[in-house]
């Protein structure tokens, strides 16, 4: 049987800002329907990689294919269309401050679906309930805590029920229980929507609980140092840095 087309494919990608190369010569493919986490030390370029994957920045070289189509060479119109096909949450939530929570979640529905207003409200309420924010419909983002904003951002990303979701540190700043709820929500969505998740995260517990795969980036080599099932990597990785990263040891103290 022919192998299914990977949902995200990265070839020889080099990215950075201005003159400064953050990551170089990355190549990997992510298959449909899994949960892939990207981790690495702070400042190693996880958010940068994510922002390139979703087409916000143009890479120095290399190509990024989403569902078999290049987002690097796409025309602005095609890019808009591709971007509509996936949901993204940002490290800071990135809700629109001039809209209430409900309006934030309704916005993509308003712009891209033919739903009537009551339908939109119902759909948006359902998404907010999923992230346990029911009852906060008319709050403005400024009136919410950081974790609540993050969850609302998640609800907005889910609004169009996309097949591909990118999360930038969804659980940072959440308490352990909410964070565990979030993990359950992600697993539930994976089963229900058959969606693919690409998640940047530092939460080891959540990685071991939900991830099928993890890519570990390294600042020094500016590339991927490990790629595979996080549980296996933790036990069997040949790279001591990776092993200690996943086991929460710090090499500096145990040498």
């Amino acid at each position, binding site marked *: 049987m022919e192998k299914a087309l990977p949902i995200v494919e990265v070839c020889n990608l080099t990215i950075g800002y201005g003159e400064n190369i953050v990551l170089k010569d990355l190549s990997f493919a992510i298959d449909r329907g899994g949960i892939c986490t990207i981790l690495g030390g702070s400042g190693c370029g996880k958010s940068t990689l994510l922002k390139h994957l979703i087409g916000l920045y143009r890479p120095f070289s290399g190509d990024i294919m989403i569902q078999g189509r290049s987002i690097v060479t796409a025309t602005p119109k095609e890019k*808009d269309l591709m*971007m*509509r096909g996936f949901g993204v949450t940002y490290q*800071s939530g*990135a809700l629109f401050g001039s809209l209430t929570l409900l309006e934030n979640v309704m916005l*993509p529905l308003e*712009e891209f679906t033919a739903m009537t207003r009551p339908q939109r409200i119902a759909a948006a309420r359902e998404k907010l309930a999923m992230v346990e924010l029911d009852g906060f419909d008319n709050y403005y983002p400024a009136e919410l805590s950081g974790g609540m904003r993050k969850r609302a951002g998640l609800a907005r990303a889910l609004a169009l029920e996309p097949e591909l979701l990118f999360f930038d540190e969804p659980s940072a700043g959440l308490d352990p229980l909410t964070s565990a709820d979030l993990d359950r929500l992600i697993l539930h969505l994976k089963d229900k929507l058959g969606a693919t998740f690409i998640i940047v995260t530092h939460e080891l517990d959540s990685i071991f609980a939900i991830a099928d795969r993890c890519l570990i980036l390294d600042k020094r080599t500016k590339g991927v140092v490990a790629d595979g099932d996080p549980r296996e990597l933790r036990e069997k990785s040949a790279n001591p840095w990776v092993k200690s990263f996943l086991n929460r040891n710090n090499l500096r103290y145990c040498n």
Partner: protein
Amino acid sequence: MSMPFDIDQRMEGRIEDVGSFVQNIVNDLIRMVIFTGELTLVVWDAVRHPRRIRRRETLYYMDMCGTDAVPIVVMICILMGIILGFQSAMQLQKYGGDVFIADFVSLVIVKEMGPLMVAMICTGRAGSAFAAEIGTMKVGEELDALRTMGLNPVRFLVLPKLLAMLLVMPLLTVFGDIVGIFGGMIIAVLKLGLPVVVYYNRATAAITPLAFLLGLLKSFVFAFIITVIGCRRGFSAGNDAQGVGRAATSTVVSAIFWIVIADFVLTFFYSMIGE
């Protein structure tokens, strides 16, 4: 006493300063033209699909840039009328041309000071607010979020502001014109002892419909300049709080600069067609 050598060096520095100043202006102009092009596409799209205009935001900005600016516009323009009245009264009295104060004040206000003063007020209130708002959205990754949702930030953020400004600034200008002319009347009546009716009749006779419309056209152009500069500065703001502050400041400086340039060009053209 400085040595000739120092003077040479300082001159060189000056010339460099002038050079980079001019270069900045040219770069600014190029980027503004590009942004205006992008905006034109969005406006064209809005003309074809008026239903897609975000009405609520437009109303919000009309309120913010228009309604909320009325008190300050009234204050400034009435004072401007009084100042113009004073200055012209002193000159006209010398030649016994007291009655021309009405012509002078009303024409200067309608053709020049009304649109200009309203533009200055709107630069300080709306232009800097636009830059700060968009800059803050950039810092908070909201612009990224808009783009990845497939929403055009120009349509979403600039269009409502532009529409609101284009609607509201001419209205404010009409308002400012009226109170400014009224300010001149206070001086005409109190200082020169001119009857109110005489002032009124001369003023209404002096302002031709064309002069009035050309004044409004100026305020249209100024509204466009303020919105474009404010929004563009917001989009190119640095990614931190200081960047947002700098964007707001530089909006005010360059909007005033370009408003004065535009005013000069328009006044020049108006004089060519005899207005």
